[in-house]
């Protein structure tokens, strides 16, 4: 233990430029996600594994090329996994561990923290989308590409982030963990990711209002058939507005 040079601790307080804070916080968010094995399992391993298995093993009947059906659903699953489930769990535990509270006592503005979280999610999504597209193409995927895909990804991310922050921002870490995984699993089954919505008969129309179904169906219409589904886009927009508003109101930092 060494002593301190006189004057070395003299006050010189000033907040860092916002750009530096944003970069540092975004890097921290991304590091935490990629270092956490559960998060990697949830956001990368499971979606890619499901894509390979569902496409190669024909135990679920679909119309058209198998990869053309499953890649859009898996893209929706990937976005749900990182923006909703991963973010909810991380946020729930950060609150429980007092991290968010402590960040609140630093010059980091809350909007910069939330922006950094969003950028962290988008960076992980980019990695997911690239890997899923590469694996999909290797499995014989023939997409129709239009720029509208970006709108679906952005609205889907906004909707799921809102829901994730609402959950993680109000419940304890462990409750969030349980709830986020349960919701993830239910939406995986009912959200048009694994099973075509038509399998659910009369309920299909209602299920399409779920954010996962709206995202998977919208992406599928677009990438498989080149059709923009306005209804799904609208459903996602409504989810995004409602969830983000609710999250902004209910979010507790402690």
């Amino acid at each position: 233990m060494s002593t301190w040079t006189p004057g070395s601790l003299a006050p010189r307080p000033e907040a860092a430029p916002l750009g530096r804070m944003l970069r540092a916080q975004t890097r921290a968010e991304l590091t935490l996600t990629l270092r956490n094995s559960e998060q990697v399992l949830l956001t990368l391993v499971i979606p890619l594994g499901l894509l390979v298995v569902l496409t190669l093993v024909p135990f679920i009947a679909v119309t058209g090329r198998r990869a053309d059906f499953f890649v859009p659903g898996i893209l929706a699953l990937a976005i749900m996994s990182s923006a909703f489930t991963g973010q909810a769990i991380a946020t729930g535990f950060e609150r429980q561990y007092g991290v968010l509270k402590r960040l609140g006592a630093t010059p980091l503005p809350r909007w910069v923290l939330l922006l950094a979280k969003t950028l962290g999610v988008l960076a992980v999504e980019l990695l997911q989308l690239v890997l899923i597209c590469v694996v999909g193409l290797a499995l014989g995927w023939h997409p129709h590409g239009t720029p509208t895909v970006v709108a679906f990804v952005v609205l889907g991310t906004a909707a799921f982030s809102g829901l994730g922050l609402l959950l993680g921002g109000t419940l304890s870490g462990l409750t969030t963990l349980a709830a986020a995984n349960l919701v993830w699993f239910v939406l995986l089954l009912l959200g048009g990711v694994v099973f075509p919505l038509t399998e659910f008969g009369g309920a299909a129309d209602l299920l399409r209002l779920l954010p996962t179904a709206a995202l998977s169906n919208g992406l599928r219409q677009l990438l498989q058939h080149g059709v923009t589904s306005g209804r799904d886009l609208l459903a996602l927009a409504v989810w995004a507005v409602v969830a983000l508003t609710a999250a902004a109101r209910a979010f507790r930092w402690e």
Partner: protein
Amino acid sequence: MNDTALEVVDLVKRYDTRTALDGLSFDVGRGTVCALLGPNGAGKTSTVEIAEGFRTADGGSVTVLGHRPQDPAVRPRVGVMPQSGGGYPGLKAAELLDLFAAFHAHPLDPSDLIERLGLGEVAGTPFRRLSGGQQQRLSLAMAVVGRPELVFLDEPTAGLDPQARRATWELIEALRHDGVTVLLTTHLMDEAEQLADDVVVIDHGRLVARGTVAALTHSDGEIRFRAAPGLALEIAGATVTETEGRYLVRGLAGPALLAAVTGWCATHGVMPQDLQTQRSLEDVFLDLTGRDLRS
């Protein structure tokens, strides 16, 4: 520039039916170290957390460097070390301190700070794998890395081994030397005696005593010691009381009283133990807050 760094006036805080703070007032001068003492549940953490902007008061006011505690202008100027937690479990010690340094325009060198606090060997260890004492020291580093004017330390040495406590004390002394204001809460009387310019004792959410350590422990004309019970100790011009071998001699102030006591002991072949010419801060504290255990 105002010479008060922190001003607490008639502060009231209630949790449901319990009143945690009941009209507490005190202030902390710029560049001084103030120790907030009190039994468990006295209201120390409530006071600190209101001043940090984490909780809101139900009455009264707190002024931090001339601002309301929630004012964003205060954030860069204040460093906060909470009682526990506050680190990303998955980030390494050095990454965590680098992150907090990045929130400030002119931070201390994080790697130098880590070395000086004896954390060099665990710089690459994730926060969750650090020992409690290492987490405490890193948390202290996170509070001071931004070169703040005012630092809140909530029980900074709780659970530390003597070496780590010494390192923490050295840092606090260096902060004071460099003009940083420090408000710390502690249960350790020797910590307050060692570090604090001013001591504020609170109990049941109210101010019980405040002043310098010297003023609070000052007890001119009192000598205490331990010896075998039942000694026929008589000192001219002084009163002697004894409780189970603990002797208290009250008389004229000054060395003459000490000479009279030790002279009597020498004559009678008695070796006085723990002879004190002033009260310890712990005596003062227990006299003020009572000896009952608090939950």
